[in-house]
C-alpha cells in the first residue's frame, strides 16, 4: 500500500474513531444529564411531598388539638379522670375481673322491706378490713426528730404501719375495692 493511501485511510480512521468516541460520550453525557434531571425532579417531588405532609400534619394537629378535644369532652363525652379504684395495680388484679359465667349472671332485684330490721343486707356487708390483710410498707427515716436531739442522717427504713385489705381474688368478687380513703374526705 502506498504511503499516501495509508495516510489517507489513517486520516479517515481517526475521523471516524473520533466521531464515534464523541458520539458515544455525548450519549453517555446525555443519559447522565437525563438521570440527573430525574433525580432532581424526584428530590423536588420528595420535598414537595414533605411540605404537603407538614401542612396536613399541621391541619390535623390543629383540628385534633388538646383544647379542641377538651371542648368535645366538655360538650359531648363528659369523661372524667379515672378514680383511684379504676386503675389496676397488677395483672393479678386484672385477672380478678375474669369472673366465671355464673358469677357474671345478673343478680335479681334487691328486695327491701318497709320496716328496717337489724342486720339487713347492707349492714351485714363485711367491712373491707375483714376480707384480708396486706402490709402497708412505708419508706421513711426513723422518728428521731420527734424524740430527741438531732442525730446524724440515717438511711431510710421500712416499717409496717397498718393492715389494709387486699382485693379478694375469688371469682365471686370480681371487682376489687379501693382501700384508701375516698376522695373528698376531710
Amino acid at each position: 500500500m502506498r504511503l499516501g493511501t495509508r495516510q489517507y485511510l489513517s486520516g479517515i480512521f481517526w475521523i471516524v474513531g473520533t466521531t464515534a468516541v464523541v458520539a458515544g460520550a455525548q450519549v453517555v453525557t446525555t443519559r447522565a444529564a437525563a438521570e440527573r434531571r430525574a433525580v432532581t425532579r424526584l428530590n423536588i417531588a420528595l420535598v414537595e411531598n414533605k411540605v404537603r405532609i407538614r401542612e396536613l400534619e399541621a391541619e390535623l394537629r390543629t383540628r385534633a388539638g388538646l383544647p379542641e378535644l377538651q371542648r368535645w369532652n366538655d360538650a359531648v363525652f363528659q369523661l372524667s379522670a379515672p378514680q383511684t379504684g379504676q386503675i389496676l395495680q397488677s395483672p393479678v388484679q386484672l385477672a380478678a375481673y375474669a369472673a366465671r359465667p355464673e358469677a357474671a349472671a345478673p343478680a335479681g332485684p334487691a328486695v327491701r322491706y318497709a320496716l328496717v330490721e337489724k342486720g339487713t343486707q347492707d349492714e351485714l356487708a363485711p367491712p373491707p378490713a375483714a376480707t384480708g390483710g396486706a402490709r402497708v410498707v412505708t419508706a421513711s427515716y426513723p422518728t428521731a426528730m420527734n424524740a430527741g436531739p438531732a442525730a446524724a442522717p440515717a438511711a431510710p427504713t421500712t416499717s409496717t404501719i397498718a393492715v389494709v385489705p387486699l382485693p379478694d381474688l375469688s371469682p365471686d368478687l370480681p371487682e376489687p375495692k379501693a382501700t384508701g380513703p375516698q376522695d373528698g374526705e376531710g
Partner: protein
Amino acid sequence: MASIPGTGPFAPAAAAPVAAPAPALAGERVTARAQARQRLAFLIMLFPLLALLILARLIDLAVIEGQPAGEAAPISAAPPRGDIVDRNGVELARTFEAYAITVMPRRLTSDPEVLATKLAEILPERSREDILADLTSRRSFRYLARKVLPGQAQRINELGEPAIELAREAERLYPNMNLAAQALGYTNDQGKGLIGVEKAFQERLADPVQRAAPLALSLDVRVQQAMQNELAALVTDQNAKGAAGVVMDVNTGEVLAMVSLPDFNPNAPGQRADGTRYTTDNDDGSRFNRVTLGGYELGSTFKAFTIATALETGTLTNLQKQYDATRPLEVAGFRIRDDHAKNRWLTVPEIFIYSSNIGTARMAIEVGRERQRDYLERLGFLKPLEFELQEKARPQYPSLSNWGQLATMTISYGHGLTVTPLHLANGYATLVNGGLYRPPSILKRDPANVPPGTRVFSERTSQEILRLLRLVVTNGTGRKADVPGYRVGGKTGTAEKIENGRYVRGQNVVNFAAVFPVDAPRYVVVAMIDDPRGSKATYGFRTAGMVVAPAINRIIRRIAPALGVLPDPARDINLAGMLPAKAAAEE
C-alpha cells in the same frame, strides 16, 4: 501595510473608476494581496475568539450550571424556622408556607365596590367595608389577608384582578391555640421571636443548620392542658383576675407545665378574645407571663423554708419542740397573729398544719437574719431565676439595712418578700428532692445529663419536710388536695395582694404548693389564684384551702396517670408520732 491613497477598502465611491474595467495594474495586485492578508488575519483572530467563547460556555455549563442540585440551590424540606415540640414530640409551633393576599389599589382595573363584595364572600373574617377601605386606599400596597387557606387563595385568584397578588410567605402556626401561649411566645412578621421560647431561642430556631431538628421543650401538652383547663375553670368560678400554675419534675428541674391566665392566641397575638385589637389602653395583661414575670408575696407556703432552715442550722433539733402561740406577737408596732389561732403552745407539726404565723416567726428569730438570708439566697429567692426565658422578674425584698427583726419574722411566713410562682416551685423541688438546688429548665433534659445540683438541705431535712407536707394534707389546711392513693403533700398560702407597692385590703393571692407522691417525690405542682371572690362551690370562702386545694386535687388526678404515677392506697409516708394525742383528737 501600504496602500495607495483613495484606493483602499474604505475609499469613497466617487473615487472608484466609473469606466470599463481597466487592465490590472501591478499596484492593484499588491492591494488585493494586502486585502486578502487583512481578511486572513481577521479570520485567524476570529477562530481563537470563537474557541474562547466555546470554552467559556463549557466552563459555564460544567462548573457553574453543572453543580449538583443539593450544593448549588438547596432543595430541602427544612422549615424556614425550626419547629417547637413538647417532651413527647407533639408539635407546639411550626412554620409552613401560607398565602398572603396583597393588593395594589392604584392598579385596580375592576370596580372596588363589586370586588369588595366578592372578596368579603371569600374572606368571612373581614367585613366588606374593611376590604373596601383597603381597595380604595391611597397607599401603594395593602395586605388584604394573611394565612389564607389554599382554597380561598384559589377562589381569589379566579377573580382575575391583576392588582391582587397571591404571595407565599412563611407563617408560624401554633396548633394548640392558647395552650402555653406565654411560654411559647410568638413571632413578628419578619419571623423574629418577640416573647417566650420564640424569643429566648431565636438564634437556634432561625439557624439554617439547626432548624431542621425541632426544639424539644420539657413541657408535656397533656399536663399543660389539664392544668390550664382546671385553672381557667377556677378563674371563672371565682371571678378572679388571673391564675398561674407550674408543674415541675423535682429530680431534673424540668418544667412540665406553665400556665398563666388570662392567656391569648399566639396565632393572632395582637387580637383580644373578643376580636378587638390590643391597644395601650385596653391591654388586659394576657401576654404577661405571671409564672416568671409576676412577683407575689406567697404567704404561708414559705413556712416550709423557715422550718427547713431551722432544721438545717440546728436551731430546731426536735419537731416536738414547742413555741408560744398563746397570743399575738407585738413587734415594732406591728401585730403578728394567727388566722387559725389555737392560743396555746404549738409543736412544729402543729405550727405547720395550723399555719401559725406566730410560731413560725418565733422560729425565724432563733434562726436569725443572716442565716435566713443565706438560705433564701441559696434557694435562689433573692435573684431572678436561672431560666431560659427572658421574661423574668427580680424578687423584691428589704435591703440589708432594713432587714431587721420584723422583716425576719414576716419573711418567715411569706410576707415582705415577693417572688415568682416559678421561684416557689423550684424552692419546693429543692426542699423535697433531697435538698439539691437545680436551675429549672424549659428544655427537655437528657436523664443522663441532669445537672448534679447544689446541696442546700440535707436528705434528713428533706424527709422531715415531706412528712410535714403530707401532714398538712391529711390533717391540716390542705385536706381538699388529697387524692387517694397518690400520697399528696402540700402547703397552703394566702397573702394580701400588693398593687403599686401597697397592700390592697380585701384582695388576696392564694396559692398551694403540692408534691406527689411524698414517699418518692417526683412532681411539684404550684397553683396560684389572683384575687378570688368566693363562690357557691367554696361556700364563699376565698382561702387557699377552699379555693386552690380542690383544683390541685383535680389536676393531680388528671396528670398523675399520664405521668406514670399509679395510685397505691397501700403506700404512704410514715407520720407516726408527728402529732401529739391532743392535736390528733382536735382533728
